[in-house]
């Protein structure tokens, strides 16, 4: 075997696709050729990187939710046709918080803060829908959750900020949260765009029993 054949068959060798006879010839060459050995090592490093590129863990309770649509569980499903419109969002507890007509109507008076109910230690998704009249190339979002409420899969992280673009029309933002104590609090979402800023507050009440879905429309403070 020469070096060209070795390099051409490198994938097959690592994937275990070579026949035993070819494999032994292959390894004999690798044992005596530094260049090919280096190429092999580089390929192994690449494969290791690929293997380590993991998927994010599903939100807590996924194993149970996987069976939520079965006939026995059907009555406990929270899915609604409206939510289904958003890619069949979330079979587990859903909270929908709609912040409509973003940036269109400046808020001039204090409004009541909407509230949602969470079940202790149960992941629930707060879905926020931002209806934007025109595309926004760069908006800055920030979210703050109380200390005793975790962002699912991100324990200890209570404040986050990131930049993103908003498409014209409805934009869905989904935040799975878990209450770790029965103490309530407020989720605060801020959006900045240019010199404009809008703040949304959501009161979080914690209960120990199963709750249904709550829809709160156009509540901005």
């Amino acid at each position: 075997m020469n070096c060209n054949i070795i390099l051409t068959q490198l994938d097959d060798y690592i994937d275990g696709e070579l026949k035993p006879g070819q494999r032994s010839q292959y390894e004999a060459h690798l044992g005596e050729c530094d260049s090919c050995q280096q190429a092999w090592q580089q390929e192994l490093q690449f494969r290791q990187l690929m293997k380590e590129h993991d998927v994010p863990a599903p939100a807590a309770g996924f194993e149970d939710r996987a069976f939520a649509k079965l006939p026995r569980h059907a009555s406990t499903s929270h899915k609604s046709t409206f939510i289904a419109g958003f890619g069949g969002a979330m079979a587990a507890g859903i909270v929908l918080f709609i912040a409509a007509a973003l940036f269109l109507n400046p808020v001039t008076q204090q409004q009541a803060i909407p509230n949602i109910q969470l079940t202790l230690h149960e992941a629930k998704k707060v879905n926020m829908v931002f209806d934007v009249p025109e595309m926004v190339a760069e908006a800055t979002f920030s979210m703050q959750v109380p200390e005793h409420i975790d962002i699912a899969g991100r324990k200890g992280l209570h404040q986050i900020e990131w930049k993103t673009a908003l498409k014209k029309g409805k934009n869905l933002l989904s935040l799975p949260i878990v209450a770790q104590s029965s103490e309530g609090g407020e989720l605060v979402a801020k959006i900045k765009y240019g010199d404009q800023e809008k703040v949304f507050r959501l009161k979080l009440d914690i209960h120990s029993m199963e709750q249904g879905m709550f829809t709160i429309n156009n509540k901005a403070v």
Partner: protein
Amino acid sequence: MAAILDFFSKKQSPDEFEALLKPHVGHLYRVAYRLTNQAEAAEDLVQDVMLHFYPKLNELKQIENLKPWLARSLYNRFIDNLRKAKRNPVTDAMEDTVLETITDHNLQPEHETEQDLMHQRLEQALQQLNDDQRHVVMLHDMEGYTLTELAEIMAVPVGTLKSRLHRARNSIKASLSMEPSDTLMRVKG
């Protein structure tokens, strides 16, 4: 009497179904996430597969190696959903407006390591591949399916998968500045 016994023996048991399938749910989620790249869509896909197989418990119990078998079903459902979405773009128009799912990608740790950055670049490189290449490289190199299993799952010949895999890896390496031709050229030179 035999017919009655047979009827009862075939009656569905949710507990039995869950006991059989639960060990595979985590892996199915991983495959679903690789395909959809979105946690909620992955959950939905797994739920759909469970619902599809629920009336087929007795059939499932006869299958020796459930893992690739379930993966094939999940893949088929994913492809079916894609085709339906292409046929009916209006129904799925809302999907295009999804802004972010926070836990998926955009929670940045305070201190990013070099490895974190490398994985971000790898993710970008994966997103530049076409669907066929991305699926095969993810399921083979990341989830550990063999080419023979993938040929069965995707209903595509091994030779075609090999070629997709090769192109996908080269494209990723190029994006990560790990030019595959470097070594080859060095050897040839």
